[in-house]
């Protein structure tokens, strides 16, 4: 067991962890931040996406010990300070970018990273960026639309039907 200290969604956290504790397990089991989901065991689906020091990371690919000293952000830390949905979350609701909701936290975290890197992406760039995220419900159409809308681009002309 080793002691780790990190900042999670703006709050400092210190815990003892085993060397083989995955970041997904640490967030879900130790911190009870269950919005980070585990959808596969091969780092393919992206349901466990979090931000580590501002970078998009699949939490299933790192040990909790590796996060010592890091700034961690999860889906639970994305809403505005008053609790309202942030621009990306609101766009997902407005454009029906989620159905069962299981992949959604990972999609929102990926979208936030994309828009930080590329504030006005094209449709092709959005689709390319989502290569590491699998959604089984939506067919991605409305996810892509939501991300374009969140970037401030007008999607009203895109066939909504």
């Amino acid at each position, binding site marked *: 067991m080793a002691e780790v200290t990190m900042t999670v969604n703006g709050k400092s956290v210190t815990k003892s962890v085993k060397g*083989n504790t995955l970041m997904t397990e640490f967030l*879900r*089991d130790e911190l009870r*931040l*269950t*919005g*980070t*989901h*585990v*959808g*596969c*065991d*091969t780092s*393919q*689906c992206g*349901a466990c996406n979090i931000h580590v020091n501002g970078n998009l990371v699949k939490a299933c690919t790192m040990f909790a010990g590796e996060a010592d000293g890091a700034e961690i952000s*999860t*889906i*639970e830390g*994305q*809403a505005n300070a008053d609790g309202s*949905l942030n621009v990306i*979350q609101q766009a*997902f*609701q*407005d454009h*029906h970018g*989620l*159905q*069962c*909701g*299981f*992949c*959604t*936290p990972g999609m*929102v975290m990926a979208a936030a990273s994309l828009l930080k890197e590329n504030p006005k992406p094209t*449709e*092709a760039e*959005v*689709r*390319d960026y*989502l*290569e590491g*995220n*699998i*959604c*089984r*419900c*939506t*067919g*991605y*159409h*409305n*996810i*892509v*639309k939501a991300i374009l809308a969140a970037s401030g681009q007008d999607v009203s002309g*895109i*066939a*909504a*039907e």
Partner: protein
Amino acid sequence: MPKDHGIGASQKRREDVRFLTGAGNYTDDINLHGQAYVYFLRSDMAHGKINKVDTEEASQMPGVVRIFTGADFEGIGGLPCGWQVTDKNGDPMKEPAHPVLAQGKVRHVGDPVAAVVADSLEEARTAAEAIELDIEELPAVVDMKAALADGATKVHDDLSDNLCYDWQFGTDTEATDKAFAEAAHVTTLELVNNRLVANPMEPRVAVGDYSRANDESTLYTTSQNPHVIRLLMGAFVLGIPEHKLRVVAPDVGGGFGTKIFHYAEEAFCTFAARQINRPVKWTSSRSEAFMSDAHGRDHVTKIELALDADNNFTAVRTDTYANMGAYLSTFSSSVPTWLHGTLMAGNYKTPAVQVNVKAVFTNTVPVDAYRGAGRPEATFQLERVIDKAARELGVDPIALRRQNFITQFPYETPVAVAYDTGDYEATMAKMEELMDIPGFPERRKASEAKGKLRGLGVNCFIEACGIAPSNLVGQLGARAGLYDAATVRVNATGSISVMVGAHSHGQGHETAFPQVVAEMLGIDESMVDIVHGDTSKIPFGMGTYGSRSIAVCGSAMVRATEKIINKAKKIAAHLLEAAETDIELKDGQFSVAGTDKSVAWGDVTLAAYVPHNYPLEDIEPGLEETAFYDPSNFTYPAGAYACEVELDPETGEVTIEKFVSADDFGNVINPMIVEGQVHGGIAQGIGQALLENCAYDENGQLLSASYMDYAMPRADDLPHMANYTVDHSCQTPCTHNPLGVKGCGEAGAIGSPPTVVNAVIDALQSGGHKVEHIDMPVSPSRVWAAMNG
């Protein structure tokens, strides 16, 4: 102007807020005090005789609470099959035992041999490695035709062979043979409907709990139908009466059919929690899901289409082998029969239709319903053979379909179902308009200028949804009723909880169902919530599958709300000192017709619960009503789909350049949600057509057991927005349910695979390649091989 509330409004989904903020409550988010964890040791061979499972050393490992094997389940029921199919000779289907943990033999890769319960998952997994297994490997049967050959290895030693049933349905053989003998033209096609894995993004989870104080068990599980699990597990497996068993399916991360079924892990966790008096939790890994979730499709079919000299369809005959896997999953037997054979007439007035299905046991994971369940298989065969016939006859595939459309309703097909309503010409015309069919030659030229081949594929489809009349399905072998139920509980202040038997796992029921109640009562939707997914809270329910939620459960909710209105009018009449027949309800106000006297919804609901001024001699206090609704027929959504592909002759790569769906879902409650359902269905259909394949080698080893080797559709595999339109403006309302709805959940997955393959074949033919068929997934290597083969 689109509506902004009530039926027909694209209300934003209220459930989204919790999912978008990480506040959803999925089964794996549930942890009970003192819970233990189970790890299942699964067979790594497809077929083997269990000589010994030695758990002695493993039992001494740190943290181990108890290790269970098949022996612990002797004398306990096995997992039941919910649908009895009768063979064409009148014999019942063969129903092998399906123990919770393997007994005597292992029959597929993933068959659970032992279950280690420990204080932590890590300790359970470590101890499982110390279990000594002596399993003698036996030859495996994987290919269905080989499994039926004389002398083939038997999956179940106590059965005479690997044939589960040999089913025949529809027009009799004499009349069918005569139609073929008299045909001017016969088109024949052999094809495979590829084995798929449903892959909801949330893997299955089960948490069993037991209370000694009152001898009650609770199972938290990832299910589409908690009451069905309670009935099957309680009555058939563990012998726990319903009033001592609660099944909860909280937020569920997608289902697509594969979470309908009652699984061994659910029974195990419930059983083990009683044995060790501690909660027991199981969370599937994705790899485990690939070898333990029921798979879908896996049919091998020969279809023949007979036409007269005027190109009218005169007969269809099919001969299908349907893979059951190693055991009969809950609804497995119904999929290739009643969910498939009954749809073989399609949208066409073919007078003779005969369906033959051999269901076969193999050493593979059980196969059961997956989005569309039987209907995609029926549509794929029929729409592929029609395309081939059009090419052989040199006629336009759209015109050939149109000429044979059913145009008079109701229409009784030769395969037992009666379509109540539809307008196939309307959806075809809508598809042609949206697809800009006249512009196709220009688009093909543009592709050819880039060195690509371009193909146009079209097809129609029909499905039977809203499953459906209990008396009919009972005759067909269903061992359950297929009604649904709803309780509308109006609270004293006028807010409403509706307890519904349908389960929402992505379909947006929490938003759409209240739209109906709010519209009926004329109150704000925010006053209405639905409650679902907990057998202790809802009256009963058969759950969500077969696009049935709004058509069946929604209808139950309408009936219960009508009862509420009737009673509320009586109360209002009393308060207004008027005759009940003079009371009108509009915009949440009860008024006396022709006067300005009225009372508000809240006044009436308060009077029901604070009955100081109340006709107690005539009606009871309170305002709560339950209705069970059993439909008189299936619903029949239908549509026309079209797709254009570009094919790179250098590599065989296929890309979808344009896609249109024109569906008839009858009335629509929330268009935004309906369109989302179609998007998802189309993505799964395109996935089946181009990417997905569950593959076994000849020894029964599962080759595609992770997302590294099972190709799930990703965002860049699907058509871009500008070239993609889903439409449901053609609406012929269902004639027999109160909402006129038909259901929309499966259409996309049914309508899209044949249109993609038809387009690929059209592209190849345009390039001079005389290719008539490529089995799905139409991968670059298969296309290249077909071109160069």
